[in-house]
């Protein structure tokens, strides 16, 4: 999308070193927040933020770097959540196996739906993914293993590798933080790999990428599946943290929420989805007492972001940062001339 194209065009070669440095800073800040967070904020809420931040990060992989807006990512989040909850509850699998199973199920679904959905792009892609996700919603509603409206409740948190008891909130917090941080590093690695660069080239000008000999369809499918894997992982962890999986996870409102998170935080930026997830989750939580207006507020944020704040929080900050760096460089250059 155009706004991200601008901001990314600016990140290219000239400021490459500063971009890497600011990324390092970003990871440092995230690590610091993870460590200090539980002192100030309720740890369960922070775990929720992390799960949704991963969800948004996975979604952003597709939107921000692949240029494809999916309106049905709740399907992968939800399948991850259901499968891992079921594995942990009905089969008594340990958490690491359950989460792996959930992630794998999401990947499988991602491959199947990816093949169908990437046949169209742009708005069609958005509508097709929405419809496919709705199909999954209906299936989850009808098949017995999901527990229908009640969902899967009382999912055991279990013991990690048979050793670490996760029933303690802080222990679980540690585990979730590690998974979160590692996945984030992985996403960053993907984005800045040659693969990621090809993706952006396709996003910005597909015809040129084809003429350079890239099989764009495969790249698009690959990023779609990668994105669903990260989202399914987020869903699978959410099931263990909250000990439940429910229809909310696969509902289209969840798909809308992840779009909102990414939009608010700044699409096409690495840390934007994190910030966006924190903002939206916090808003939902702290505004719970005014309940019925939450959706109106979310809608308002949507409209406001689209009309006047398309770069999102992180995107705007980054632009600001770049501009001030450029200004400083300009000033020193002038000073040198003088």
């Amino acid at each position, binding site marked *: 999308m155009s706004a991200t194209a601008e901001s990314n065009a600016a990140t290219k070669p000239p400021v490459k070193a500063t971009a890497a440095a600011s990324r390092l800073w970003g990871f440092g800040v995230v690590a610091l927040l993870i460590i200090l967070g539980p002192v100030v904020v*309720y740890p*369960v*809420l922070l775990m*929720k933020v992390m799960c949704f931040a991963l969800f948004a990060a996975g979604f952003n992989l597709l939107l921000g770097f692949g240029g494809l807006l999916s309106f049905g990512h709740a399907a992968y989040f939800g399948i991850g959540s259901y499968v891992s909850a079921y594995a942990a509850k009905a089969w008594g699998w340990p958490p690491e196996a359950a989460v792996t199973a959930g992630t794998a199920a999401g990947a499988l679904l991602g491959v199947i739906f990816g093949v169908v959905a990437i046949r169209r792009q742009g708005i069609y892609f958005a509508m097709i993914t929405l419809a496919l996700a709705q199909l999954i919603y*209906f299936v989850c*509603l*009808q098949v*017995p293993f999901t*527990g*229908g*409206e*009640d*969902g899967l*409740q*009382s999912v055991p948190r279990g013991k990690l590798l048979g050793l670490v008891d996760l029933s303690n909130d802080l222990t679980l917090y540690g585990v979730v933080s590690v998974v979160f941080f590692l996945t984030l590093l992985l996403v960053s690695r993907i984005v800045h790999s040659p693969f990621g660069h090809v993706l952006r080239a396709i996003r910005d000008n597909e015809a040129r990428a084809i003429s350079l000999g890239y099989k764009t369809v495969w790249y698009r499918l690959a990023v779609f599946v990668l994105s669903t894997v990260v989202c399914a992982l987020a869903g699978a962890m*959410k099931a263990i943290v*909250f*000990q*439940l999986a*429910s*229809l*909310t996870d696969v509902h289209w409102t969840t798909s809308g929420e992840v779009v909102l998170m990414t939009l608010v935080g700044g699409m096409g930026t690495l840390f934007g989805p994190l910030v966006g997830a924190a903002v939206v989750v916090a808003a*939902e*939580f*702290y505004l*719970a*007492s*005014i*309940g*019925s*207006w*939450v*959706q109106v507020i979310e809608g308002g944020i949507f409209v406001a972001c689209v009309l006047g704040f398309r770069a999102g929080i992180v995107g705007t900050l980054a632009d600001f940062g770049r501009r001030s760096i450029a200004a400083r460089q300009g000033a020193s250059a002038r000073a040198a001339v003088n």
Partner: protein
Amino acid sequence: MGVANRVAALALALAAFTGGPGQAADVKIKVGVLNDRSGIYADLGGEGSVEAARMAVEDFKAADKGIMVDIVSADHQNKPDIGANIARQWYDQDGVDVILDVPTSSVALAVSQITREKNKVFIDSGAGAADITGKQCSPNTILWTYDTYALAKGTAGAMVKNGGKSWFFLTADYVFGHSLQKDAAAIVTAAGGTVVDSVNVPFPATDFSSFLLQAQASHADVVGLANAGGDTVNAIKQASEFGLTQGGQKLAGLLVFISDVNALGLEAAQGLNLTEAFYWDLNDGTREWSKRFAARHGGKMPTMVQAGVYAGLLHYLKAVDALKSKDAAAVLAKMKATPTDDPLFGRGSIRVDGRTLHDMYLFQVKTPSESKGPWDYYKLIQTVPAADAFRPLGEGGCPLVKG
């Protein structure tokens, strides 16, 4: 959260400060009303449940008895993870002692589990999954108002007895719809009726016409609606369009509330049979309370869920007052040992599995000409006595029931 309620709490605290000389050590209680304030059940519970809770505190004159009650409230948006998150935070950080209402079974089951883990008290009025006092029962959870079994029992049992021998079910095609149908079908058969056929309707559905056509073709005496909320409203509206009841068939809602009837209007809902635990126009006690409630709540008469929040909190406060303590285990034991008695549900008791026993009522929705004014919706067909209204203790599969 619940900023507005702080004011009420402050007023209560003030009242206690000025008006209660010679009181023993005060008990401070924090009550959390957790329900749907924006979604499909907002009219059933919502802000009205909070109002009912406030009325319980005032009517009990809690402050005079040295019990300081602070009421907080939140919207779980019918999402179990949001509900669970709020419940955890309330118990862990905000010092909430008892959670009330909680419609939507998925959220209620999650809150029930957390309440047990944290050893607090959960008095459920809004959700009706019979599992809450069945397989997933908890010593810390009380299910006050209704459950799906009791609704099926009231409607199906009484209607078969009154001549509705053959049944056709329109079933919402998911676990909840199927369990609703299963319960009702068992009761129909046990009472000597037959189930002619049933059709699984995808959920959620807006158009029921083709299914109603199948129901009409079955010539069953009764068409049972094993669905809820918007689906039920749509089904009833279209049943009236297709002249189902004019054709001699009866329509039975297995999960319909007065808020749904209000939404339908009598023109469409007339003749519908349904079971509720409470109706504002039952007796002097319910009328007196309901009129006070309506005066405070924009003229809307209370639903049974709101009435259940009131009665449940009242019973809880009585136990706290008797013990002068809010220790969860002791209060729960006291609540279950003491017979329940309030103007809304009459006399009753709480079973070991958490089920509150009280009378249930089979109503028929009035025709527009029978109704004398707003909210005059029901005529009483039959009272189902407390002893027969609910699932027998041994059949729920609750592990707390010994032997």
